[in-house]
């Protein structure tokens, strides 16, 4: 199985995603250059974290116009699996692959820490190796992670079971929707209508080795292998 990892100018988690694929599930990974119209016959596309184009203007706004993104969009429309992490999630929203937007964290500060997220749906290409309700310990590292959409969209996402991850484990007295960045309804990750595009702010690729604090993200990769693997 081949994972294609897009490198935009300013991507900086492309390497982390690459290592996660190669070191943990032993599958093939290739970098995809933003200027090329070439997905190199990848079975899965990863849009990695980072600061594409410096995230100047708005996170992800410029990257969505990269040549390679036109191919990624077509790939996704054909049902190809796309894992969009952090800046990748922002790009996927800007590109219209996922609904909503990711705005500046409510604290106006960049936040890097391990957080706990809850698996809300395991009926996806990316989470079938988890049980609903599993709590994962995963790092976040972002300045613009406040998921925002209108009520209608939010209700639809919930109704269709497309909220895949939610932030969990805020302070005991926090309200139901506690999130580190102010995300609406504590949303940390969603899938598109057809279930083949997952966007998430936390970094599963940084949680694949207990030496580094957690391997709770490993099953995201194993799930993909189980569902798509050849």
């Amino acid at each position, binding site marked *: 199985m081949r994972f294609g990892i897009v490198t935009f100018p300013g991507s*900086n988690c492309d390497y982390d995603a690459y290592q996660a694929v190669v070191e943990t599930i032993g599958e093939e990974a290739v970098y995809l250059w933003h200027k090329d119209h070439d997905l190199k016959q990848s079975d899965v596309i990863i849009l990695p974290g980072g*600061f594409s184009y410096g995230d100047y203007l708005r996170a992800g706004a410029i990257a969505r116009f990269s040549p390679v993104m036109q191919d990624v969009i077509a790939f996704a429309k054909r049902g190809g699996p796309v894992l969009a992490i952090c800046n990748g999630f922002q790009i996927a929203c800007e590109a219209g692959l996922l609904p909503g937007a990711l705005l500046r964290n409510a604290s106006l500060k*960049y936040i890097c*820490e391990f957080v706990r997220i809850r698996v809300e749906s395991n009926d996806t290409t990316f989470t079938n190796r988890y049980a609903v309700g599993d709590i994962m310990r995963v*790092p976040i590292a972002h300045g613009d992670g406040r998921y925002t959409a209108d009520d209608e969209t939010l209700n639809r996402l919930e109704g269709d079971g497309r909220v895949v991850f939610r932030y969990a484990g805020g302070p005991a007295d926090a309200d139901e929707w506690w999130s580190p960045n102010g995300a609406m309804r504590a949303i940390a990750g969603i899938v598109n209508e057809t279930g083949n595009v997952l966007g998430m702010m936390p*970094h599963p*690729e*940084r949680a694949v*080795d207990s030496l580094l604090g957690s391997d709770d993200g490993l099953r995201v990769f194993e799930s993909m292998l189980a569902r798509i693997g050849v």
Partner: protein
Amino acid sequence: MQRLHSVEPRPGDPAITPALIAEHGLTVDEFDKLLAMLGREPTFTELGIVSALWSEHCSYKHSRPLLRTLPTDAPYVLQGPGENAGVISIGDGLAIAFKIESHNHPSAVEPYQGAATGVGGILRDVFTMGARPIAMLNSLRFGSLDSARVRYLFAGVVKGIGDYGNCVGIPTVAGEVAFDPSYEGNPLVNAMCVGLLHENELIRAVAQGVGNPIIAVGARTGRDGINGASFASEDLSAESEAKRPRVQVGDPFTEKLLLEASLELIRSGAIVAIQDMGAAGLTSSSAEMAARGDVGVTIDVTKVPVREEGMTPYEILLSESQERMLVVAKQGRENEVTAILEKWDLTAAVIGEVIAEPVYRVTEGDRVVAEFPGIRLVTDCPVYTPEAYESAEVVRLRAIDVSQVAELPEERDPLWTLKELLSSPTIAAKTWVHRQYDTTVRTNTVIGPGGDAAVVRIRGTERALAMKTDCNGRYVYLDPRVGAQIAVCEAARNVACTGGRPMAITNNLNFGNPKRPEVYFQLREAVRGMGEACRALGTPVTGGNVSLYNENPTGAVYPTPVVGMVGLIDSIAHITRSHFQEEHDVIVLLGEPDRNIGGSEYLSRIHGMVAGPPPACDLDGERALIDALVEAIQGGVVRSAHDCSDGGLAVALAECCIMDRGAQRGATVDLKHWRELPARALLFGEAQGRVVISTNMPDTVLSIAKNHGVPGRIIGQVGALDAPLHITTVANELSAPLAKLDEAYHEAIPRIMSRAAVVSP
């Protein structure tokens, strides 16, 4: 014999007057030296060039003779001081490049951009050695957080460091922050970068090969930061305000592209040298590369890509626009260079070439605007050894018998004192700071901020690097020689606590105006102490930076020689953390407390006093402690290790209990053995050479300690999750619910910083 052109003044340039010379920071003697070197009047452009190159910042004219006394050798040192960064071998054909640098003055004027561009500069110093940056550290000093201006500076600096490093994608893994009124108005912002390279990809910034083209790479040159190097060589004053337009703005996005492009360039073999255009921009990078290679260069400023119209040669040469590099390529391979830069959407322009004639020549098209006798431009720089004597005030303070200081009524409850210390911003958790730093990108961070030292694994090997910055400026103020020794030892101890064998240091000497005898005394003695400690520990100095003139209207900052230590951990299996791990583990104290409370955080925070002699430093004892610690950790018998520093033993114990908010454990500790010592010295004194260990094999730990001649004693036992911390001395008893300690330690800085009116850009 070289023959200099007679260089005509450029139309429109100001005439050389005594006032202009003074404005450029040259003394009468220095100007005479320049006249002698040229054999004629300098042009305006030449005056600018010399002003920059002979500024303190570029020339080290007040520190060079002192720096020469530092030890720089070890079998594993591949590159000592004098290059963009030092390099040490770590085996397997791998090496580490690392260096620290200050951006104090720019950060005082514009904290966000000042700190951000500081990070950018040190990153470039490391990747121009052919190394991929793998970790960032920093060392910060501010005035008291009670001031809104200080909170603004603190918030801006932290955000600047974070935004830049985060965007480039290098984890910021360790650092230190201390607050003291002496830094009011003149914060210290030191940033350190560590990079990894293959030994055979090491490249030096040495211009070579007559006919080789010189290429400007990266961002365009604008009018920002013109004469920044001279600016960093003056006291801060109201006039600095007027110098504001000199502030430079960083573009981390371009830096990331430049990083990738530079590493690709180096690997391509198409270039012979590469250097950052840092302080004094094009001038210093070209002059230094030429001097190192003992060659001449010629540069045509009209070829330099500029951002603004009508820039003069003077401006182009002295601009400190960020994210630029100077490259010497191999003749005939210019197109390869250009192609690599184009791939990363960056520009490259041939602006000059290496020449046989030993001159440094700048032209504007056909007109020569500056010409110097080659390397003399760099080597003729004046060197000063000013008068030095110790400040009478410091002598007086040190002589005060601080043991006589009366205890406050509140101190009858040692828990009160402990909470006061834990909530002192200098001691309190710095999570507010490093939560704004990406600490986990590149997926190698085993221990990030919050431990003793940071640990970053080396992929593809069994090993890891440990690293930390340290310095207690108060100790250095009270006794520069001892204080600097302690800075080295504390950094080494922190590294050893994680299992790392200390290998080498980089250092940043932050001092006041060296023309004042009291300040030059501090500098001289601190360098002496640092050298002694480095020799004793076998950790050579591979590079560093000197930042002088850190003063404000009320005087100099504390002398602050920051040490950045790197060490090697042989096996990732033995990486050790600071906080208690398992119930029933035995707590062992290595090292001995003593009765001195001089120079302590206790005296400063509780009694508002900076006095007494600082803790003593026993270099042989420190060496033995580190050997014992590393041996015990490698033997797999240590479950946690944390060194005693600010706040003493009680604070160290509390930190072992509460540092990790995910799993806080209590402890029961008995210190009655030391019945002679006053309780406050035992609990809060800052005797050096001490480490708190937890272990399930105390006998082995104690026998290893004994073999190394290190005092060791069992002092207690680790408790259950959320059990209290209980400490008994002959004189008193301290019983602390962890929630109280947690609140004091973890909420102190967030609470202060939530006072509004801190809006950073």
